[in-house]
């Protein structure tokens, strides 16, 4: 596994206009550290593009091809093909999109690029809502969360669906490599990025990247919350490789889900019985998985 000491000091992402403590920026910065300068980055609409690619604040130091919101994977496809005919197949093509850009409006294109078996790395930084537009529900918004389109009013309307399971959807594509990981675990995450780079064919990483602004949390807690998600068992670290789904981190003594929920503004309204229901679901999931 990657050692922090060995990681390059070179920064390819520097000076973004993101909120203080943005988890998405951490995800992108770490990934670029592994992939290095010989990378082309694709960013669609979303917080990262909005905060890293606005003139004159150009925070990314690899070629960045920005694209339309639904088009990250297909822009990746075009770059892969273009670099191939230009004899530059050694360049890593990296698509990075949010949960909305990946699991909602970009899913079809992603499925297509994966199915065609193109050679690329794709990272979905998951902050569990459409954050760039102010925090609307996406299909990755977890059960119980408040968003601006699942407001909490007289008629209860908080999000009532579980998260879309991106990793299993990719596994169903029999993708060469995919992982579910978290910015709180840099070694594991960066190791996934390295594997993804080395994979011949499509490789997709789904990384939890909390958003202090959207989650209603202190900017200093971004990493801590991501870690809590793992330690409570809410966020499973897993990989799909060689046709196999594998849990990559088994938490011995899972922390109570409540600890995670109570730390966040977006769950403020949740009655305790809902939290207990969530705890039960988590417990059942892990029982079933072991």
């Amino acid at each position, binding site marked *: 596994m990657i050692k922090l000491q060995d990681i390059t000091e070179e920064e390819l992402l520097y000076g973004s206009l993101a909120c203080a403590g943005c988890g998405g920026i951490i995800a992108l910065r770490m990934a670029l550290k592994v992939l290095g300068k010989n990378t082309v980055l694709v960013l669609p609409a979303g917080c990262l593009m909005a905060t890293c690619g606005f003139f004159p604040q150009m925070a990314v130091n690899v070629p960045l091809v920005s694209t339309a919101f639904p088009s990250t994977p297909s822009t990746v496809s075009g770059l892969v093909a273009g670099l191939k005919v230009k004899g530059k197949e050694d360049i890593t093509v990296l698509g990075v999109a949010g949960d909305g850009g990946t699991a*909602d409006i970009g899913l079809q294109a992603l499925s297509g690029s994966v199915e065609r078996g193109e050679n690329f790395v794709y990272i979905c930084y998951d902050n569990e809502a459409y954050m760039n537009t102010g925090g609307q529900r996406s299909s990755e918004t977890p059960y119980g969360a408040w968003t601006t389109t699942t407001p909490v009013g007289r008629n209860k309307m908080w999000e009532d669906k579980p998260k879309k399971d991106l990793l299993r959807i990719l596994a169903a594509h029999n993708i060469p490599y995919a992982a579910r990981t978290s910015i709180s675990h840099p070694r594991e995450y960066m190791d996934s990025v390295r594997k993804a780079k080395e994979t011949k064919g499509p490789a997709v990483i789904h990384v939890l990247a909390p958003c202090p602004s959207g989650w209603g949390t202190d900017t200093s807690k971004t990493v801590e919350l991501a870690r809590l998600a793992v330690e409570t068992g809410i966020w499973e670290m897993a990989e799909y490789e060689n046709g196999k789904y594998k849990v990559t981190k088994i938490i011995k003594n899972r922390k109570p889900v409540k600890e995670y929920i109570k730390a966040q503004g977006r769950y403020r309204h949740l009655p305790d019985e809902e939290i207990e229901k969530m705890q039960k679901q988590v417990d059942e999931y892990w029982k079933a998985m072991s």
Partner: protein
Amino acid sequence: MGKREFINGNNAVAYGVKLARAEIVAAYPITPQTKIVEQISEFISNGEMNAEFIKVESEHTAMSACYAASCTGARTFTATSSQGLLYMFEMMQFTSGQRRPVVMANVNRAISPPWTIWLDHQDSISTRDAGWIQIYVESAQEALDTTIQCFKVAENKEVLTPVMICLDAFVLSHTEELVDIPEQAEIDRFLPPFEPDYKVDVNRPLTIAAGTAPNLYMEFRFTQQQGMLKAINLWKKADEEFGRLVGRSYGGVVENYKCSDADVILVTMGSLSSTAKDVVDSLREQGTRAGLAKLRLYRPFPEKEIFDALKSAKAIGVVDRSLSFGFEGSVFSDVKAALYNNNCCIPGVNFIVGLGGRDVTADDLKKMYDKLQYIQKNGKAEQTVEFIGLRWSE
């Protein structure tokens, strides 16, 4: 009379949708529109409004769902902007071709790239041929009232055409101002329930959006065109009736602001019209016979009404907040085409302004009127298209 609120254009549209008793709302976020659907979802969550709120995964789906919901006979609304509008382009045409009176708010925003979130009219204008009625407003109040008028005209059996209400990003969508909220009862009097003849009914199984070979297609398009053209007079009537019942109206389809005796007239759409009225008044004070033709309805294009507003002018300027790339502003072309149809060839000039959020000030507008006075004197325009407010000239 209802209550008065200090709200922005997005909220105002949401109030309009609520008062119109829309039954289906498809929602997908995009700045600067999002507040509309957020506000509606709050209305619903608070029990103030009774509608199915579909949280779709893209705008193509938003419009597909609206198309289908309207086929069941439900009153249907969605809202979008810019990239979102472009992404649903195919379904926009499906909806209009099948004559489903969906109402959509488009918060006008420029198109990327260069990446932008700011105001111009390129988004709605670039859908001008798509068979949607388009109406532009200049204030939050007009946004609210017009939203309600939209349903009235769209659902008229002679029209049956979807309507897009266009309001300017930020300048209207995010600007709070004083808005009268009509009473529900007033609106219920104005807007009857939607009861289409052709809808999904298991007892009368229709094939909706059937295929037609060349032997029939053209006739459908002809009747669609006829229906759309009828919207001009029907909108005038609706606006007038709204005035009678609610107490506000907006001059029909072209607001004639001091045009009747004007030598120089600007044609504008959207929020700019508001500032321009100030400018007209101040020019009038200085003795210049200035006028403003505010185009509310852009599609169907009110050929006769715009001719009537402009016919006695000595010089006209058409202000476009968008560009038909490779030619000129589309409103300019359309206005000229309409005048031409009336054998009228007043010297005219096109001002391209405010692309990608560049502010258009009263000073800018004054300069445009100055230009028109110069043209009036010369009897002809030297240059037909002029960009106003460019940072550099070369």
